[in-house]
């Protein structure tokens, strides 16, 4: 009974947040950001325990893994369209993911973060569902990593395009790739609004970053750990 009610409320809240976002499509009104903030506030105010909430919302959580597999479909569709740029996109995603992981590691070492937190910050250049999976396998705190990724996405959604123009990057394709790798789903949404080509490149770059992160981040993390220790 409770589980059904919790699912109804969570899905209902998400649908309302999506409707709000459709009327005012600003990255600051991102539906996930709004939903997580509201549910967190409700839990804090009512004293309802998170593990109880999570148990009850497992039916929703169950769809996350199939949804990640489903990303193969848009990847395949885009692959047939932008075959010629595919290798460059793989390289861009590889560099973006590596830069992100190495920089985050260096900053964690510099600021003397403990190992839990360091492993939480290793996979921030991927969309949040994937961050959850990778961070979990690295022994970090998945939900904190996901929250970081969402906020990075919001930052990129608000400032990304302006920043790229400031850097003299003019082709919509290049802007899309940069947004997809660095600012994931929210960056991709911004790219889609800006230009259809930017959107297509962003979504492929985002999915490629996810695949590359899954294979490369654990290896890179081990290398960095052995270098530093």
């Amino acid at each position, binding site marked *: 009974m409770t589980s059904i009610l919790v699912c109804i409320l969570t899905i209902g809240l998400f649908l309302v947040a999506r409707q709000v976002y459709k009327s005012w499509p600003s990255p600051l009104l991102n539906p996930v950001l709004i*939903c997580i903030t509201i549910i967190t506030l409700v839990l804090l105010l009512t004293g309802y325990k998170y593990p109880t909430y999570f148990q009850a919302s497992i039916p929703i959580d169950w769809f996350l893994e199939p949804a990640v597999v489903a990303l193969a479909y848009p990847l395949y569709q885009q692959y047939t369209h932008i075959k010629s740029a595919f290798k460059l996109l793989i390289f861009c995603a590889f560099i973006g993911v590596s830069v992100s992981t190495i920089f*985050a590691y260096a900053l964690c070492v510099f600021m003397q973060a403990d190992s839990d937190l360091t492993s939480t910050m290793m996979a921030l250049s991927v969309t949040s569902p994937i961050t959850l999976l990778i961070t979990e396998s690295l022994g970090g705190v998945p939900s904190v990593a996901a929250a970081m990724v969402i906020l990075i996405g919001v930052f990129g959604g608000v400032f990304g395009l302006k920043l790229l123009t400031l850097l003299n990057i003019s082709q919509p394709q290049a802007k899309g790739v940069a947004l997809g790798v660095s600012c994931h789903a929210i960056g991709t949404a911004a790219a889609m609004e800006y230009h259809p080509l930017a959107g297509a490149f962003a979504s492929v770059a985002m999915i490629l970053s996810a695949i590359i992160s899954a294979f490369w981040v654990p290896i890179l993390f081990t290398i960095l750990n052995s270098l530093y220790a």
Partner: protein
Amino acid sequence: MEKFNYIIGMFYVLICLYSAKMLILLTGLNIPAPLVGLIILFLLLKGRILAPQRLAATCQSLIAYMALFFIPVGVGFIEHLQLIAQHKLLILSLLFLLPCLVLFSVGKLAAKGKYRD
């Protein structure tokens, strides 16, 4: 007939996910299974073993609502407020510096490409 495509598509998606989990169990690799499942499904599509139409409805709706599916885990950061408060400075610096740095490096690199419109 149309609406049954959701179930047919889900059937294939779950087969890919399960195969990926088996593969990881057998090899002991430390890679999230859904990403391996993604690659399996991509290869099945690319190798024309699966027709894309069979997956269109399921995949498009799963992806359209992907954001909803990670809300339950996403709220979990509530259990780690202390950790976040302890490392405010590190977290805030990463939030600003990381996207700028990656936007810069990937943007400059991608701008070197020649794109056919």
